[in-house]
């Protein structure tokens, strides 16, 4: 079951996603314990594997710390749905083989706690709680290629072979 955790706010930044006081490690499990800590201290208690985060504009702005993606992935989040993403966060996600969904419609219509079913290939979110279908534009081909290869380093290895 995929549940939406909705933060109806723009500019949720990397300091909120993983505060710098935890950047002295790159251990994903350790980082996961503090995911979104300064935004919502309860988040790590309520999040479950395969859930998604939903937010407004410019999600992930601020630092280049890839720790933000590692913390989000570490708690088992399958994707982030936002109206838009900050540049380095977007790039880090792709490079980690982590899928992002950019959709203003989804960010507006999905309510906190809604149960979702996401078809990445078709670009379709089924909001089962609200009983609505939301279409989204899949990521560009070059990004999908990297994600499908499992991230940038695997992609480079594959294309170098």
């Amino acid at each position, binding site marked *: 079951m995929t549940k939406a955790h909705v933060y109806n706010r723009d500019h949720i*930044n990397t300091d*909120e996603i993983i505060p710098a006081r935890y*950047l*002295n490690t790159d251990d994903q499990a350790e980082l996961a314990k503090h995911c979104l800590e300064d935004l919502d201290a309860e988040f790590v208690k309520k999040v479950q594997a395969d859930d998604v985060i939903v937010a407004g504009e410019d999600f992930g*702005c601020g630092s280049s*710390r*890839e720790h933000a993606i590692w913390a989000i992935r570490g708690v088992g989040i399958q994707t982030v749905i936002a109206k838009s993403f900050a540049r380095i966060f977007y790039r880090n996600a792709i490079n980690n083989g982590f899928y992002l969904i950019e959709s203003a419609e989804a960010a507006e219509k999905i309510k906190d706690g809604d149960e979702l079913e996401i078809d990445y290939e078709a670009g379709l979110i089924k909001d089962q709680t609200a009983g609505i279908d939301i279409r989204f534009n899949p990521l560009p081909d070059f990004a999908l290629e990297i994600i499908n290869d499992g991230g*940038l380093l695997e992609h480079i290895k594959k294309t170098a072979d």
Partner: protein
Amino acid sequence: MGMTITEKILARAANKNSVRPGELVDAQLDVVLFIDVTGPPAVSMLETRGIDKVFDREKIIVTPDHFQPAKDIKSAELHKRLDQWARRHNIKYYYKLGRAGVCHALLPEQGHIRPGEVIIGPDSHTCTYGAFAAFSTGVGSTDLAAAIATGKLWFRVPASMKFVLSGKLGPGVYSKDVILAVIARIGVDGTLYKAMEFTGSALKSMSMEARMTMTNMAIEAGAKNGIIGFDQTTKQYLDEHLKDKKDYTIYESNSDAKYEEVEEFDCSKIEPMVALPHLPSNGVTISECSAKQMDQAYIGSCTNGRIEDLRIAAKILKGKQVAIRTIIVPATPTIWKQAKDEDLFDIFYDAGCVIAAPTCGACLGGFMGVLAEGEKCVSTTNRNFVGRMGHPKSEVYLASPATAAASAIEGKLTDPREYL
């Protein structure tokens, strides 16, 4: 149609005659930065994949900075990983403790930044180097890993936005006030994914240090890179700082280059600015926020920890006493020594400030000046996000070194023009 300076540099690096915004290119990298927080994870990524090579040991510049000198056991482990890797690969430019400094102040100062080059670093403020007519952008650890191994990265060519800065800055007004005014107008995603090109007559009177303060904060408007064209000021700085490789290529935007938007600023009308919590875009003039009580002043960072910044602060603090905790952080050992040789340390000591070792330190809530619950800090740094300098309920007010120094004396946000 003509190209912008950003497009020209990316075209050169991708070995193409021309590129257009939106186009994907594989660019050859000229300089790759490596630091303590984001560098070691990149090495681990390579090692777990059985890749242990560097594309060019002379093009990777290594310095610990965020948590150096090591603030705790875990950061000491990061430094150990950095040190072992740098030694194993015989990295030519490895700045160890004693020569290590805040990377974005250190690299230009040590002559590693040249016009026309493509520079990446695993820190969002890598956009700083655009002040030298170079393409420079921040990336994450995976990109760094790829860069270390291959010397190449993929980029989507950004569209450009032009910022025309005219007029002369008034007394007590600095480039920090200009960039805070720019971001206040366009917002923290005002240049998302784009190149932020600064031009105009106001730049002429700005030193390279002052220009770096502006390109440094391009990321605070969401930009991919900030960039300023080459002129005599650039040349003079390079003549004084370049060491091993002194040749470079100068690129300029064509007069018919395409800009998505053009924003104009009359700098003579800009007043000392303060960005209120919790976004760099919350800039207001000092008169709109003066008298707000502070608990700490912090003068340092890659934004405003250079010698010029320390001189500006010292001029205001000379013969005065600070009313709140005031932390001075020279960004590099060279700046530290310059400040000492110019007797600025005496001024800071006499005023009641503490002088720290070069580090990113408390700018990102690391150490050496972290805030307690409810505390407020006027800071010359670049971000005032929730919890940025410490407790999630602490507050950061971004300002120029002059405003921070004047505010330190009064213990509240203060117009620096009262102390000129």
